[in-house]
């Protein structure tokens, strides 16, 4: 499956991936509205950690054997058999955040329910598309584009 891979050496800590992720997961798909007026506020599913000297964007690894899926107490967190995407069914999720408590990557966000990277449902992810320094790549786990 294709996932988002970060090249730390190229990350310039601009956080545009967060901006475009939040926008892509907003109702309006508009940057300003996503940040200023939408209720509930959309949540970025990718986070940049570090500072100006070294930084890297972290989002879900869509693990082969995901701890979050195993720990989910409602069956809301599932790994799609065909696409490999790990996603939350927000209708089933009760927001207990057990998934967050077991995720070793630290990529699950808290809102009314758990929120996480859905790899833009298989389209080229917004974070990758908008990374100005090509620090984010959308690749097969083996490295192929």
């Amino acid at each position: 499956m294709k996932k988002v891979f970060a090249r730390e050496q190229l990350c310039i800590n601009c956080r545009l991936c967060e901006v475009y992720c939040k926008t892509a997961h907003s109702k309006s798909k508009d940057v300003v509205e996503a940040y200023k007026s939408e209720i509930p506020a959309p949540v970025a599913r990718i986070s940049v950690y570090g500072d100006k000297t070294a930084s890297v964007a972290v989002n879900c690894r869509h693990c082969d054997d995901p701890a979050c899926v195993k720990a989910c107490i409602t069956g809301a967190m599932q790994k799609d058999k065909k696409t490999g995407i790990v996603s939350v069914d927000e209708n089933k999720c009760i927001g207990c955040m057990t998934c967050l408590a077991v995720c070793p990557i630290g990529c699950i966000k808290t809102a009314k329910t758990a929120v996480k990277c859905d790899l833009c449902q298989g389209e080229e992810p917004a974070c990758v598309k908008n990374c100005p320094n090509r620090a984010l790549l959308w690749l097969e786990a083996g490295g192929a584009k």
Partner: protein
Amino acid sequence: MKYLIIGASAAGLATAESIRKTDADGEITILTKESYLPYSRPSISYYLKGVVDEKSMYLRKPSYYKEKNINIITDAAVTKINPEKKTVKAGRKEYSYDKLCLATGSKPFVPPMKNVEGCKNALTFLDLAATKAVKKAAKADTRAVVIGAGLIGMKAAEGLSKICASVDVVELAPRVLPSILDEKSAKTVKAHLEKNGLRFHLGNTVTEAESKNGKITSVILKNGDVLPCDLLILAVGVRPETELAEKAGLEVNRGIITNPQTMQTSDESIYAAGDCTVSVDMLDGSNKIIALWPNAVQQGTAAGNQMAGGELTTGNTYSVNAIDFYGLRICTCGLINAQGEQYSDRIKAEGSSYKRLVFEGSNLVGFVLINSSVNAGIYTSLISDKIDLSTLEGDIMDDPSLFMFSKEVRTTKLTGGMAL
């Protein structure tokens, strides 16, 4: 190969799914005494509150079981296991097995109280059927009393407080949520719960009830207080459901004894997983009952894998729990109330947020996070992977992230070692 599983919650379902991964053709049957397909037990309080409906509580779609060829028989209460004949009896039917897994879970523990047993409005709160009874009994003018301020009791109290006129909680321990909170954090949580209308009677217990026509009207506490009561919830605690195992002659000490790697009981054809077993906590080597969902799933997965002849899976056993009350998020892991010279701790408390980390030497062995659970799983991984904290960067008390690890380690975690 004929596989039989008793119990259809977290451990039972995980066992079945794990068997199917290794054995595509074996006959898998799950017997459950409940009337429902596998559903989320922890969701019952959300069902009581009306936040989730019954349909969204089911862990899998009904069609899933057909797809996976897993046969679930509901309303099948097993009364006897015959390990010599390799059969179990449920009602008038007898089921044979090659490999059996006991995933019988917990049963409510009800301490002796005068005049409570048999009263129509004294209910437990552990499964969907019981929750339906509670929901039916809880009205806008109901004065509810919950005995037990553990996870189950507090979730019942929270749910009832959205419906009932008043909710009183009686707890023998001097603090709320004694199994997951330390003394200091329990104070913060209690204040929050009281702000939301719950009344507490800590260090106290119900000794007796007064009733009229088989219905409790009030309860009398140990200190002499009398609480008017239209609905009594019995949530003192749970015990492993080990009756079948004991009658079958399996080794039981509080919970069913298993080999922690294979989940085999003292009978090599019988396995056990989940709340009915005794676990060995990897953090202090102690035997304890870890009645928590992730542990049940892990044990079920290990059991199923072994039953189907798969390879040994190594899992780390420790407690991890996340729960919320009226928007207050509590996340705990590992040794929270560790006693001994080898342990130290650090606390950071600001407003409604509280963070306590427990250390043993240079390892993290436990945490309590209240409204501060950002990336809590990173802490959990430090505990389960026994990471030497001196290899990390930054202050461990800050919000954890992959950036705590050295560049090499965090890059490997993100890329799986692929050169980019």
